[in-house]
């Protein structure tokens, strides 16, 4: 049924807890507290360290809160840290990452969603063969494909261009995204698709007018997965583009993996957090929609 397909997953389903201070609740919240601590600890360490000065870090207690809060490392990581001769920190890389991420995310999602839709609703001969190969592709380590892709991009004249990199991200994002979209579209009532066909809507008409408007959750998931993956990519960014469009991770790598005498842990941590900020923000903002979308994309199928 239309109205129950993708919108009813949000309520907890477990047995209802009883009294507020039952033994069960103490155990439940106790466990969750410890678990939350374990997951939050590294972030805490990163933040705390990034706010300390180097002398304080040498004291050695990574868990202690900063005695004297300084934002110097953040400023340095963002705009002053040297990577080779370039001494403008992560700031240039940041905008390059934005320029890489936005078109890559958009293109990969458009293609994968159309794939998923074609696979779910327009089963044509051989579709499953290609889909199976695609799933196999999800398991290929990127390093293995580095040279073949260099050669392919060279042959189509896109090597070293932003377009080439966008295509590479689209290709490697395709397997998992197609799987998610295919599962999602399969979970939508098929009668809707049939009704639209009777109504004379074609392949694209149904996709844009019927499917896309119903797919906000899965598009959210796709955006999150792709932004995370592409934003954090180092290998493709450095191999398939030139230095004028190196993503932020290249700067991060240069900051973290080269030192001037002493390792500046505070700057490293600040750089690390700054780099992770974009995907983190998207996670925190999209919260509930993410779970709902995952539910819709992964549960059915």
């Amino acid at each position, binding site marked *: 049924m239309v109205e129950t397909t993708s919108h009813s997953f949000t309520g907890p389903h477990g047995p209802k807890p009883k009294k507020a201070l039952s033994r069960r609740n103490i155990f439940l919240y106790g466990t969750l507290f410890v678990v939350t601590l374990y997951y939050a600890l590294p972030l805490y360490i990163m933040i705390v360290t990034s706010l300390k000065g180097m002398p304080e870090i040498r004291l050695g207690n990574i868990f202690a809160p900063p005695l004297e809060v300084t934002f110097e490392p953040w400023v340095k990581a963002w705009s002053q840290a040297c990577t080779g001769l370039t001494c403008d920190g992560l700031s240039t890389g940041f905008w390059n990452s934005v320029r890489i991420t936005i078109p890559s995310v958009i293109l990969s999602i458009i293609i994968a969603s159309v794939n998923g839709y074609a696979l779910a609703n327009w089963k044509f001969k051989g579709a499953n063969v290609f889909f199976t190969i695609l799933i196999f592709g999800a398991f290929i380590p990127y390093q293995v494909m580095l040279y073949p892709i260099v*050669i392919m991009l*060279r042959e189509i004249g896109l090597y070293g261009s932003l377009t080439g990199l966008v295509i590479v991200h689209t290709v490697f994002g395709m397997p998992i995204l197609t799987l998610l979209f295919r599962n999602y579209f399969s979970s939508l009532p098929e009668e809707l698709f049939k009704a639209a066909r009777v109504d004379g809507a074609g392949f694209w008409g149904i996709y844009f007018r019927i499917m896309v408007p119903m797919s906000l959750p899965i598009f959210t998931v796709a955006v999150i997965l792709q932004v995370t993956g592409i934003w954090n990519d180092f290998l493709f960014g450095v191999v398939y583009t030139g230095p*004028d469009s190196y993503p932020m991770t290249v700067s991060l790598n240069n900051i973290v993996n080269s030192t001037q005498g002493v390792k500046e842990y505070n700057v490293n941590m600040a750089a690390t957090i700054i780099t992770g900020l974009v995907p983190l923000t998207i996670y925190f903002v999209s919260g509930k929609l993410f779970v709902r979308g995952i539910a819709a994309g992964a549960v059915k199928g």
Partner: protein
Amino acid sequence: MNRSTQLLAATAIVAASSASATELEVMHWWTSGGEAAAVQEFAAAFNATGNTWVDAAIAGGESARAVMVSRLTGGDPMGAFQFNHGRQAEELIEAGLLRDITDIAEAEGWKDIVNPSTLLDACTVDGRIYCAPVNIHSWQWLWVSHKAFEDVGLSVPTNWNEFVGASQALADAGKTPLAMGQQGWQQSGAFNVMFAALVPSEIYLAVYGDKNAEVAAGPEVARVFAAAADARDMAATSTVQNWNDATNLVITGQAGGQIMGDWAQGEFAVAEQVAGQDYSCLPGLGVTELLGTGGDAFYFPVLSDDAQIAAQSELAALMLKPETQVAFNLKKGSLPVRGDIDLSSANDCMQKGLALLADGALLPDTNMLLTSDTTNQINTLFTEFFADASISAADAQADFVKIISRAE
């Protein structure tokens, strides 16, 4: 393009407005403090010619090499790139990807000025020159922290044997006798230094030059492995990864010493330490004073744009000019590739190196003798050896013999 190079470019244009400004992308993996400062000298000199040095620095030789080779195969070459000269670049030359710069070398008279001449030989394939050697790096140094030994009340050792002798006292004082980064190239590098310093050079050349497996299995090499086992014990408490973190242990006196190439010099310089006062450097471990003549070189891919080709030529010629050589090598902590320049401003350690260079107490570097495949296998062997005290020197030697017998 970044702000600092823009600025440099701007000043350069004012200075030499006659030359046309061509952007040339130069790729290298010199991102650590002293290295970056050294590259800056090249960049500044290049920008002063009216061209623009577009810096493409990628930390980590492995990533950088992946990018370089991809860019070359992908048909999007950079203007110039750093590579270890020696056997690594052979294939790129065979594939016709690299520019023949013999004309520049001849015009600049490199044949006469490059010393030792083996450096230029390493750039030469079938009589043509393909790279510009920029420095001489030698691995065969033991860096000793004065502070560490003063802390335990010992005199600073002057050779490896004294150093080993004092190690227990350092360990007892909670110090790491020998700082060693846990990476294969550092560990095998240290082994090769011991190999060069502790046994006669013929043995070294027989094993690495002639790939003589019999010699590799022999008693002389076994002595080197025994020394390596000592080094392993001395480095047992060294948990750092990067070479400069290890050097930092020496600088701060937490470790007694480190076997590392002359590039460690740059770290001491950045930390404002004075040779002979805060630290000592012992070439050939203070046992057999000799140097390997490895080094870095710049290669120039085949380009089609005339302006860029001209810029390449300018850069290549520039890199071996006396003033650039001095400025670069002082920062980099390496020795210049020409013997005809005055380096009186160099510190103690570099003077020692220059003296050895002048004496011809030299050994070819492993990079010139071995393929990177063989080097890599030796690296892996020593990574294992140094990490696992249960591997006996004899077992390691047996593996070593196997690698040498397979080497080309």
